[in-house]
């Protein structure tokens, strides 16, 4: 499992493309929104939690189709399927690699973008916490979607159609936690619910994704 993780990380760093792309996209969203709605600080501060979370969702979505597609094409996925490591473990490691490469950088860069969107000072801690707890669910749900669509020619579009509705609960709780944190309200409850979704995803989705991969590899 560790070897697989290391391989995926190495591929992600050295092959380029996927790694920086999500971050750049996240940055673009945070720059474009003020250009679209105007530079008024109070308005930006009010919509910042939602923009940041939507941006994080979309940035995650960008690199999902690569999660299994490359290994599927060159046959590496078949080898993993017959290896002693269960497919559930493969999926979990792939999702972890995706999170380390996409989710974690998003968490780290988010406060800077919060600054651009004049997020209220109370919101930064909750922004970090909610993204840190919420993005693992995004990677896992995305991994499930990628496993479903891995064999398809027009997979990318269907992938987003399948994955985005499943992101809704995470988005609601995540953005709500930041919003409440920014105005000094009680942000712990949405944060806990967000963490619950992530934990539930960790527990269930690798099995669902592995089932989908098995159907695709048959």
């Amino acid at each position, binding site marked *: 499992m560790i070897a697989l993780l290391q391989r995926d990380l190495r591929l992600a760093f050295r092959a380029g493309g996927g790694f920086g792309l999500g971050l750049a996209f996240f940055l673009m969203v945070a720059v474009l929104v003020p250009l679209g709605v105007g530079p008024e600080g109070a308005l930006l501060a009010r919509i910042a939690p939602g923009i940041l979370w939507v941006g994080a969702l979309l940035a995650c979505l960008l690199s999902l189709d690569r999660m299994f597609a490359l290994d599927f094409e060159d046959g590496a996925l078949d080898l993993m399927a017959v290896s002693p490591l269960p497919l559930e473990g493969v999926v979990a490691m792939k999702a972890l690699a995706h999170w380390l490469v996409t989710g974690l950088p998003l968490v780290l860069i988010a406060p800077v973008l919060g600054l651009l969107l004049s997020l209220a000072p109370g919101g930064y801690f909750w922004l970090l916490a909610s993204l840190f707890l919420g993005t693992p669910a995004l990677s896992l*749900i995305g991994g*499930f979607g990628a496993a*479903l*669509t891995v*064999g*398809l020619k*027009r*997979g990318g*579009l*269907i992938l987003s*159609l*399948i994955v*985005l*509705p*499943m992101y*809704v*609960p995470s988005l*609601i*709780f995540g953005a*709500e936690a930041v919003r409440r944190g920014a105005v000094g309200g009680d942000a712990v409850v*949405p944060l806990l*619910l967000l963490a619950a*979704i992530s934990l539930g995803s960790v527990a*269930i*989705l690798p099995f*669902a994704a592995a*089932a*989908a991969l098995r*159907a*695709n590899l*048959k």
Partner: protein
Amino acid sequence: MSIWEYANPKKFMQTSTLALPWVSGLAVVLLVAGLVWGFFFTPEDYKQGSTVKIIYLHVPSAMMAVSAWFMMLVGSLIWLIRRHHVSALAAKAAAPVGLTFTVIGLVTGAIWGQPMWGTWWAWDPRLTSFLILGLFYLGYIALWSAVEDADTAADLTSVLCIVGSVFAFLSRYAVLFWNQGLHQGASLSVDSEQHVSDVYAFPLWICIAGFLVLFVTLVLLRTRTEIRSRRIMALMARERTGA
């Protein structure tokens, strides 16, 4: 005699050939009775005027939209556990019907909401979760149509249906948390004080029964179509191999 006999496509076709005229006839009778009674023989509401009568389309279609997803969930589980093709095809057949009911529910709701709430759309929990349910239907249908191999498609959509159910359920409660809305509570419930009055409730029950039977009719019909198209594909495959 057990329900699993109908997992045999031939048996299913035989029985549904016999049942279909009766079921569709019953759907027509119930719908005509319920809608005519509801539209023409109930008084107008003192506050809502005649717009109250949209309830006869809105409530049954909304109920069926949720029930259709539930039926697909059961069909998917049966396919994954017992590998009965008819069940997978029935789930496939139900999806567009469910989507249509979802759209009917949303559109009639908007038509009613415009004069009553003064807006076509509000980000109310019920409305939002219905819209999300519609998106789940879209994803499910898109996945069915995208996968070429029929059995793989059945596997993948079944897994999606099960996981999607969990997330659709989560969304339902997440949006409650997110916004307390305009939509009134249950229109019909056994123990509640504030549901609609009996004048409206009787035709409404008939309409709900009518929509339910209509759903059964459409699913039977579409499942039969799917089975026939499977047979045609099998025949064509046999012809190609020259057997």
